[in-house]
């Protein structure tokens, strides 16, 4: 009996460890992007705090020694006093997208800034007019063919009166396929855009996951002809991620294709696939408001029921949140 109990414990531990590794492995690919966050406070003179207003100290840089600044500038006929300039709270974002692509920044899911990446795919954008607190910033990019990246989201705690710099943003590549259905054994072209000369890893899902590597060209374009002889008949998905020196992007959106008995040419992925309820080519607060109106109502707008289950519930809002553009 005791022996059997020991065996049981052994199996339990073995299984526990196996399961932990299994779940860890399944989570490894979730998001590999690493951001660098630095907070730059307004400079404080080294002598600040010695109870003497001297050197480069002023009411704004060292109120402890020099006293508080007047709340407003100017004076009656004397021609203007100093005027206290409150420290500005801002956030500066920099990273990599695709050459000359349009980058859209969202602050708490609403558009805060847009910019264009340079020829090397680098971008920098500043968001001001914010206050100290927790924000959800997100960013996406649209390449020269109008294909949009997945939304990359990062929660940031912004310090009041300081500049928060967020670097190392690497937007996931765009991805498309040349066939919506491919005859088993023929090649399917998997292509898209990322940063110039970045190393692209393409993942094709099947019972076994296949990984292929390809180098992006000077314009960031990449193309891989995948031999579908390796795949079973049925639905498959491809996704890609990019690496440049030490930076690695997260995986792109997954794009689906069928392996079957004939070849059918695919269209380029639609800019907005779902959730654009008022057909303005954006998924934003207007669409959310329309869906929110129909939430849990007995009568139903078919357009707001995104998963077609006959009701507008949290699942429909989750689908909308996935396709969000701001």
């Amino acid at each position, binding site marked *: 009996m005791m022996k059997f109990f020991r065996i049981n414990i052994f199996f339990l531990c073995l299984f526990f460890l196996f399961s932990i590794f299994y779940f860890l492995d399944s989570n490894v690919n979730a998001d590999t992007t690493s951001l660098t966050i630095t907070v730059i406070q307004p400079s404080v003179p080294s002598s600040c705090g010695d109870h003497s207003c001297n050197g480069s100290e002023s009411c704004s840089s060292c109120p402890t020694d020099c006293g508080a600044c007047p709340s407003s500038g100017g004076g009656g006929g004397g021609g203007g006093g100093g005027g206290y300039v409150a420290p500005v709270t801002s956030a500066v974002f920099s990273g990599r997208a695709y050459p000359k692509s349009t980058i859209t920044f969202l602050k708490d899911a609403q558009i805060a800034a847009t910019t264009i990446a340079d020829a090397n795919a680098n971008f920098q954008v500043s968001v001001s007019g914010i206050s100290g607190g927790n924000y959800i910033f997100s960013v996406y990019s649209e390449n020269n063919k109008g294909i949009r990246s997945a939304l990359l989201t990062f929660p940031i705690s912004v310090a009041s009166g300081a500049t928060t710099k967020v670097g190392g943003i690497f937007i996931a590549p765009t991805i498309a396929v040349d066939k919506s259905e491919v005859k088993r054994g023929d090649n399917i072209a998997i292509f898209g855009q990322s940063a110039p000369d970045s190393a692209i890893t393409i993942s094709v899902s099947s019972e076994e996951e296949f990984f292929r590597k390809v180098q992006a060209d000077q314009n960031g374009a990449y193309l891989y002809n995948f031999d579908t002889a390796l795949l079973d008949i049925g639905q498959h998905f491809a996704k890609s991620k990019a690496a440049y020196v030490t930076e690695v992007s997260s995986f792109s959106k997954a794009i689906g294709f069928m392996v079957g008995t004939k070849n059918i040419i695919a269209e380029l992925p639609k800019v907005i696939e779902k959730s654009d309820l008022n057909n303005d080519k954006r998924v934003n607060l207007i669409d959310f408001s329309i869906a929110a109106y129909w939430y849990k109502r007995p009568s139903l707008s078919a357009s707001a029921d995104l998963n077609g289950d006959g009701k507008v519930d949290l699942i429909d809002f989750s689908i909308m949140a996935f396709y*969000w553009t701001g």
Partner: protein
Amino acid sequence: MRQSLYKILFAFFLGFMLPQMVFAALMSLDAKTTQVQIGEKFEVNLFINTAQENINAFEGRIIFTKDILNLKDIRDGNTIVNFWVEEPKNQEGTIIFSGITPGGFNGKNGLIFSAIFEAKEVGIAKFEIKDARVLRNDGTGSAATLAVVPLDVVISEGASAEIPIITKVQDTEPPESFVPEVAKDETLFEGKWFVVFATQDKTSGLDHYELKENRQKFLTFFSRWRIAEGPYILQDQELRSYVFVKAVDKAGNERIMEINPQNPLGWYENYENWIIMILLGVVIAYVIRKFLWRR
């Protein structure tokens, strides 16, 4: 033999379920203290730890012992939820909430909202999370495995603690800037034009919105603000009015955003232009009379 089989099955069950529990998203209730006195106010925070999953939708109910507690306030200033489908509100001892974070949230200690309670009677105040659900940011809204952590707070008789449990919020900043948008949809309000708006206040939290519309921009100053909720059906369906939306936070700070009319009035239709012209005419007439008439 049968007993052994049960043991093996039990071992396999534990082996499978325990790791799933370890890697499940966790929705938890937390408070700075779990011991309070009658009359004291304390804050209960609802957090989400996504355990490496990217989660974009959250919902659930918080049930609390309403007989011995007063719910004083709900704060969502620093929430990770960008839009509430159902804003957290007290419904007789239950706070129902559901909301989304476009693009998803992947992290630890993501604040969903905070609730301020006042202890009114001796006892154990229980806070439970019911019907909670979190959905993955995967385009299909698949549900993630979720574990919940309840909270108990012991209320005892005695003098209130000298150190306040709730930090006082000093808020001098207006709500975040926002862009109200005018839209219409055939399925909504019989196809009438409406305006949508949403913002946040990071310090004290948002209190309410007010709105006014007027075809004369400067005369709008004299018209009254109305309490509004989005989507708001515009009175001027010809879209000839200026629309002003005011967001007010719980400390009374305000931010006003303006929408210009899509079909502005012609110059001759605008009273303001006529008023300016008449005033100008009066001034010119006065000048002529005062200075030129003498010559």
